[in-house]
């Protein structure tokens, strides 16, 4: 199924982009977990994929529950092109792990920027996004360690 990344202009598109980003990470890490070349890392990769998939559901719930017209306002300053993730994996194990670590770094940057720029729009979600940054950075570090 095609994952679509909207232009980020509003609360809804920000949350939709976030879901797309996490779905992409979940898909790629799940794909990596199933590759023979990465069989020894199957468990941690599968766990990372599950975390991202769970976040997709959490984001859907947050998008509904935190949408509040009191703070609804246009959003600018987050260019879609700055946060588009890779959609395929390279062939070699080291390349795959590097790509996934890069994806985690990208995700951390996205959530960090979102928390900073949309603090008035998110109605408290910025704290959640900052937690996501920590989680992504931790996974990026773990992936880099796996590659060594």
């Amino acid at each position, binding site marked *: 199924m*095609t*994952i*679509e*990344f*909207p*232009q980020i*202009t*509003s*609360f*809804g*598109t920000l949350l*939709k982009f976030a879901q797309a980003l996490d779905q*992409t990470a979940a898909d790629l890490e799940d794909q990596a977990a199933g590759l023979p070349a990465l069989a020894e890392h199957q468990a941690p990769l599968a766990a990372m994929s599950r975390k991202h998939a769970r976040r997709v559901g959490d984001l859907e719930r947050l998008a*509904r*529950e935190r*949408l*509040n*017209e*009191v*703070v*609804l*306002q*246009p*959003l*600018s300053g987050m260019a879609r092109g700055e946060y*588009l993730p890779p*959609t395929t994996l390279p062939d070699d194990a080291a390349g795959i792990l590097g790509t996934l670590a890069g994806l985690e770094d990208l995700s951390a940057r996205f959530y960090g920027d979102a928390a900073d720029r949309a603090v*008035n*729009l998110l109605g408290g979600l910025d704290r959640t996004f900052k937690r996501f940054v920590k989680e992504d950075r931790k996974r990026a570090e773990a992936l880099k360690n796996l590659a060594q």
Partner: protein
Amino acid sequence: MSDNTNLLPVVKEQYGRVRNYIDGELVDSSSTRNGEVINPATAEVIATVPLSTKAEVTAAVDAAQDIFPEWRETPPNIRVQPIYRLKALFEKHYEELARIVTQEHGKVIDEARGSVRRMVDNLEFACGIPSLMMGENLEDGAAPGIDEEFIRQPLGVFAAVAPFNFPAMVPFWFWPSAVACGNTFVVKPSEQVPVTQDRIFEIIDEAGFPPGVINMVHGDKEAVDGLLDDGRVQGISFVGSTPIARYIYERAAQNGKRVQCQGGAKNFLTIMPDANMGACLPNIVSSCLGNTGQRCLAGAALVVVGDDADATVDQVVAAAREVRVGYGLDESVQMGPLAAKRHYDRVVSMIDAGAAEDNNLRLDGRGIRVEGYDKGYFVGPTVFDHCDPESSIVREEIFGPVISIVRVPDLDAAIDLINSSRYGNASSIYTTSGKAAREYRYRVLGGNIGINIGVPAPMAYFPFGGYKDSFFGDLHGQGKDAINFFTDRKVVITRWL
């Protein structure tokens, strides 16, 4: 991954003729009078609406009246069970309902989603009725050995007449609390945007209310008058323009009913020299242009305080210019069309009048073209500066994406200007001064006050305020006021001999 255009699909292209919901059945109206429901972005007809007869209104009240004794005897904790089920159903149909709202009204999808969320909030509030409806008692309250208490009792059939600007949400300010309190209800949606309520009542039908507890009749003045004149209807809730609010208030009151009528508004946003404009600017623009200005809590006039206002005004104009206008189902769009051609014509004529009155038109939204939607009722963000405080664009409700800026020397002048308005729905101040904010809250004659918030929309558990020509009645919608409106208090004094 696709480079998508962010355009969401519609739920349906055509919805046919919407139906009434009477005595637990979705029924076709026998009326020969019909209206058209038009998607304001495309100007295409998406449905027709029957303008129901007085006999159909009477049938709805009959059903509500017949079931009232049984519903009243149902314990409160049981009465809220279908409301719990309805919340779950609305969560399931959340996105679908939001898209219908956008399709028939024009507001952007995030605003539509927000309105559906507010609708659900009111269901959640009503689920607390077993606690909220409790009475009070006092041992020896009347005399030694004589206890005094009051209990709350439902009254019978209530009705709501809803506006066009929030097709999903507004009826839910009223009927969930009324029904949970043990009353029965008739909803009359706006004939301009009836499709959302048609779908909502299909969903309500799944929730398991006894037939007749909640009913819906589409229509126009004939249907409204039928409700106002039916002696069995105990109370009326209304949201809309001031002239209609006044009419309904007077006619319903003459007929001995309880009435709560929310009317029009002209909301002033005051920007103090110490305001944190970097943080507040998007909120200011969103207040004025959100829902294309068709919100009774929308900012309509900016009162910029101080001698050095040019930079502030320039920021507002620049931010308004950047707002992306288009079809609300395109998720990248930040402002949709006006809801109807008639309303479009009115807003354009008021901009014409404002320009003719020699106010400084800094940004002109007339004649805006939206690619692919040439027939839509679009008016772009419009900003007037250096407005005469007595000009029509400062005094009259426009209900469109028009910002009228008045410059004043100090906070006293700002408050004097605001309090001279015939309206008193909402007002906001942007400041970093607690003293100024406190002064504003204390002195401004408005029912909803924002401090660095441009849309001070009360949550379901707070009353929706309103002063002067913005509200007729005493008990407001939502919150504890709703419990008082939909119940009577009966005092009981007891002595056991």
